[in-house]
C-alpha cells in the first residue's frame, strides 16, 4: 500500500513510439511464475509474488493508454504519480521523456488503500489459480478452482474502478466477474452451505458473507441469473436473523475427488539391470496447471540394460486432478547434451509413465569399452524434462529451481497460516477461502 516517502520512478519507454508506454515503478524481475499480473484499463500491473508477505506493495504499471489509466492511477499511486504519468505520456512539460522520480504522498482517501490492497489480492489470486504448487509428495494441498474462482469474481467486482467498459469496446480480459461466476456456478452452492453452517469462526463467517454479497451484487449488475444465483439471493435475503443451516463438515464439503496412492513402479523386467537413475527437471512453465505434482523430484527416470538394449523409463507423479483423457505429456530426454528426443507419457493411476529404447531413438549411451558397463569415470549425463507439446514455451533459466523452491515455501507458509485457529490475525495477508477449505480438506485426509 502506498506509504508516504516511498519513491516511484515514472519513465517513458525507450522505444518512444506511438503513445509510448509509460512505466511506473521498477522493471519487474524474476521468472514468469513469480509475477502476479493484472490487465486493467490502459495498463498492465505486475507484483512480485515473492515480495514481502503481508505487504504486497505497489505494483509496476506499464501504462499504454494514459488517458484511460487516469481513472485509477490517482487512487492506486496518488495524485502526484497520476500527474507525472500524464506529463510523461503527453511529453509535457519538460524533458519528461527522461522520466522522473516521484515521492509518493500519503494517499489519504480510504478507498485508495482499499483499491491497492484489493488489486494486489486479485492479482495474487489469479496467480494462484495458475501456479499454486499443489503437491501430494510435499503435502501442499491444492486449491479448489471453483472456490478460488468465485472469490476472484468478488474481488474483481470490488476493484471495478480498475476496469473500463463501454458499449463497443471489449472489456479488459481481467474484467471477468460475470464469466467467473458463470463458470463456477456449481461451486456457489458449496459456498452458500459453508456460509449457512453454524459454529463458524466469526472471521470466516464475515469473509464468506462479504464474498457472497459481492458475488450477488456483481451478478445482479451484470444481469446474470440461474438456480444457484437465485438460491444465493434467497439465502442472503433471509439473513435477518441468520437461519441455522445444517452443520457441514468442511472436509466432506471439499473432499478431493479421489484418493491418492502412489503406484509402485512396474515390476522389474526379468534380466534387466539398472545402469543409472535420477530425478529432476520439473519446469512448471512447460505444461499447464493441474498436470504434474509440483515437487521438484516429481520427475524421475531409470536407464536399464535389457539384454543388449538400453532402455529409459520415465515416471512423473501426476497432479491429483490430472486429466485422464485428452492431452498427453511427453518427456524430453537428452543424453550428454545431445539433441533432445521425446518419449510419450501415459497417465496410469497417479503416474505419467513412458519408456523408450535409447538406441532406437538415436541416442547413444557411452557405456564404456566393453559396451556393457557404464564407464565409472564418465557416466552419461541424462537430462529429462516434462512438457506439453504445443504449450511449451521452451526451457526456463537455470536459476529457476531456486525460485520454484521459494514459491513452494510461500505456499506452505500460507497454508500453515490458514490452518491456525485464527487465520485472519497477524501480519500475514488474509487467506483465500480456497486456502481455508484446502487446509480443512487435508486435515480430513489424515
Amino acid at each position: 500500500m502506498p506509504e508516504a516517502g516511498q519513491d516511484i520512478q515514472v519513465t517513458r519507454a525507450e522505444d518512444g513510439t506511438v503513445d509510448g508506454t509509460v512505466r511506473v515503478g521498477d522493471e519487474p524481475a524474476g521468472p514468469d511464475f513469480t509475477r502476479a499480473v493484472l490487465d486493467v484499463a490502459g495498463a498492465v500491473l505486475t507484483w512480485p509474488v515473492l515480495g514481502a508477505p503481508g505487504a504486497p506493495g505497489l505494483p509496476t504499471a506499464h501504462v499504454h493508454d494514459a488517458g484511460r489509466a487516469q481513472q485509477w492511477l490517482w487512487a492506486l499511486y496518488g495524485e502526484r504519480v497520476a500527474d507525472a504519468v500524464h506529463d510523461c505520456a503527453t511529453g509535457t512539460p519538460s524533458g519528461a521523456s527522461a522520466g522522473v522520480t516521484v515521492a509518493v504522498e500519503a494517499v489519504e482517501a480510504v478507498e485508495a488503500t482499499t483499491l491497492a490492497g484489493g488489486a494486489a489480492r486479485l492479482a495474487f489470486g489469479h496467480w494462484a489459480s495458475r501456479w499454486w504448487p499443489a503437491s501430494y509428495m510435499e503435502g501442499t494441498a491444492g486449491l479448489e478452482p471453483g472456490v478460488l474462482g468465485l472469490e476472484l469474481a468478488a474481488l474483481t467486482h470490488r476493484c471495478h474502478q480498475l476496469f473500463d467498459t463501454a458499449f463497443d469496446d471489449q472489456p479488459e480480459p481481467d474484467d471477468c466477474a460475470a464469466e467467473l461466476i458463470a463458470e463456477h456456478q456449481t461451486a456457489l452452492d458449496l459456498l452458500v452451505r459453508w456460509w449457512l453452517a453454524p459454529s463458524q469462526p466469526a472471521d470466516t463467517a464475515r469473509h464468506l458473507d462479504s464474498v457472497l454479497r459481492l458475488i450477488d451484487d456483481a451478478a445482479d449488475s451484470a444481469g446474470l441469473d440461474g438456480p444457484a444465483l437465485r438460491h444465493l439471493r434467497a439465502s442472503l435475503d433471509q439473513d435477518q436473523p441468520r437461519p441455522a443451516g445444517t452443520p457441514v463438515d468442511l472436509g466432506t464439503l471439499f473432499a478431493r475427488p479421489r484418493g491418492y496412492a502412489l503406484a509402485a513402479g512396474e515390476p522389474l523386467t526379468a534380466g534387466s539391470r539398472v545402469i543409472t537413475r535420477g530425478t529432476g527437471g520439473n519446469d512448471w512453465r512447460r505444461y499447464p496447471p493441474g498436470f504434474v505434482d509440483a515437487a521438484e523430484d516429481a520427475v524421475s527416470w531409470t536407464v536399464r540394460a535389457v539384454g543388449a538394449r538400453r532402455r529409459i523409463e520415465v515416471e512423473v507423479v501426476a497432479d491429483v486432478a490430472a486429466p485422464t483423457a485428452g492431452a498427453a505429456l511427453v518427456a524430453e530426454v537428452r543424453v550428454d547434451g545431445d539433441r533432445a528426443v521425446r518419449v510419450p507419457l501415459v497417465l496410469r493411476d497417479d503416474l505419467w509413465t513412458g519408456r523408450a529404447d535409447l538406441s532406437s531413438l538415436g541416442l547413444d549411451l557411452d557405456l564404456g569399452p566393453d559396451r556393457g558397463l557404464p564407464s565409472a569415470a564418465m557416466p552419461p549425463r541424462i537430462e529429462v524434462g516434462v512438457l506439453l507439446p504445443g504449450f511449451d514455451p521452451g526451457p526456463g533459466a537455470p536459476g529457476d529451481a531456486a525460485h520454484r523452491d521459494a514459491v513452494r515455501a510461500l505456499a506452505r507458509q500460507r497454508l500453515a497460516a490458514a490452518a491456525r485457529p485464527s487465520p485472519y490475525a497477524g501480519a500475514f495477508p488474509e487467506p483465500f477461502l480456497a486456502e481455508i477449505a484446502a487446509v480443512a480438506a487435508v486435515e480430513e485426509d489424515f
Partner: protein
Amino acid sequence: MVIDRAWRGLGPGLDSLSGPGGAPLTRTVKLIVLPLVVRPSLHPELAADFLAPPQAARLETLIREAGARLVATAQWFTLLKKTRRALGIVAGNPQDLYFQLCFELATEHEEPSNGAEAVARAALVEVANAAGGRTVEALKDHLADDVRRSRLDGDLAAAWESRQTAPAGDADVAARAAAQAAASVLEACGAPGPERDSASFEAMVEGGHGSLLGRALWARAGGGVSGAVSGAVPGGVPGGVWGRDDLPAHLKLTEHLVPPRPEVGRGASTATLPAPLDRTLFERLFVVLQSSVRREELPTVPELVRREVGRSCAPLGLHDESLRVAVVLGGRLAVGLDPLGDGDSVPGRTAAHRAVNSRWQREASVLRARRMTVSPRPDPDGGVLDALARDLRTPWVAYMRRLWVRLHGRDVRDAPLNDMASAWALLDGVARSVMMDHRARVRAALRTLSATAAPTVAPTAAPAAGQRSS
C-alpha cells in the same frame, strides 16, 4: 478523481449506481455522469483529463445539483432490475440497457412513486422491442420468399455484371501505390501528441485508394500466392501488392483467386462463417443483426437487404470510400504484425506497427505469467495449441476478417471514418480484438485439455457474457 469525490459527497441512496466501495461504477460515469450531467458539449472546458481548480469546482457543482435526480435514477434502476427479473428478461447488460433510460425516468417522474411499476414494465417492454423487428429471425422470414429470392438473385447478377473492373496490370500498379500511400498514413498515425495531420488519410480517400484495391482484387492482381500457383500475373508487380511475395493481394478476404459473386443465402452460423468476401447476403446481414447493441439505429430489414445487394457488389463489399481506405490501411498494418515477436523483419514497418507489435509483446508476457502459452515454434505433436500458434504466424487473416466485419457494420449504419484519428482508433481496436480472441482461444483450448474424464456437473444457465462475433 473529481467525479469520485463529488459522487461520494452526494451521500447515500446511490447504491445501485455505485461499486462496493461507494465509488461510481465505470458505466455510471460513462453513461450517466459524463454525457447527461457534465455534458462536455455544453461545457468544453470540462472535457480534459486534468481539470484546473475552477473547472473542478464547476464539475462538482454540476454533480451536486444533479444529486436528487441521481438518487431517483438509482431507485429507478433498482426497480427496473427487479421488474426485469419478474418479466424473465435476461438478454443484455442491464446497466448498458437501462442506465440512461433511468436518468430519463428520473427527469420525467422524479422518484418512483404510485404506478411506477407499470411505468417500469412499459419501459422494459419498449427497450426489449426497440430492435423493431431488426432481427435474424425477420431476415430469415424476409429471405424465405421464393419470388423475392429470385428477384434478389437477378439484382445481384446485374449489379455484379455492371461492376467497374480494371485490367490486371493497371489494377496491380494502382493497388501497390495504394499500399504504399497507406505506409505513410500509418507512419503518421504513430506521430506522438494530439495534432495528427489527417491530410494523408484524406488524400487517400479522395484518390479512391480503397476502390483501387477492391478492383485489383477483382482483376486478380498482386502476384503473391495466386501468382505463384497459376504463374505470374501478366504485368504483376514483383513483391505483390503488400511488398511480400508470399501474400495474396486479398489477404484471405476470400478463399478464391477472385472474390465470387455474392449469393442470396438462407442461413448462417457464427462458427462456420466463410471469408468475408465469400459471404452470402444473408451471412453479411446475419453478423450485423446478431451483434448489434443498438439495432434501433439500423435500417429496417427490407431496406438492409436492398442496400446490401449494391454493397456486396461494390469494391471490397463496402460503399463508403473512407471505409475502403481503412481496408488498405489495415492490410498494410496486418502484413507487418509480429505477434510472436520473432522479429521476422518485414520491410517498411511504421510507427503504427511498432505500437501494435509492442502491445503484442506485452500480451505475450502476460500470457506467460498466466501460464497460457503456445509454443513459438511449429510442433507437429502440438495439436490444437499448435494450430493457434500457426494462426499467429499469419495474423493478417484474423485481422482482416475482424476489420472487415467492423467496417461493414459501420457502412450499414452510414458511419464513415471522418479523420485519421478515428481510423487509427478503429485499426488499433481491431488489433486489440485479435489479441483478445487469441487469449480467449488459448484459454478455451487449455480448459478442454485439462478437462478430466471424471464426471463433472455441467454448469447451469451459463450466460452469454463476453460472446464476441467474428
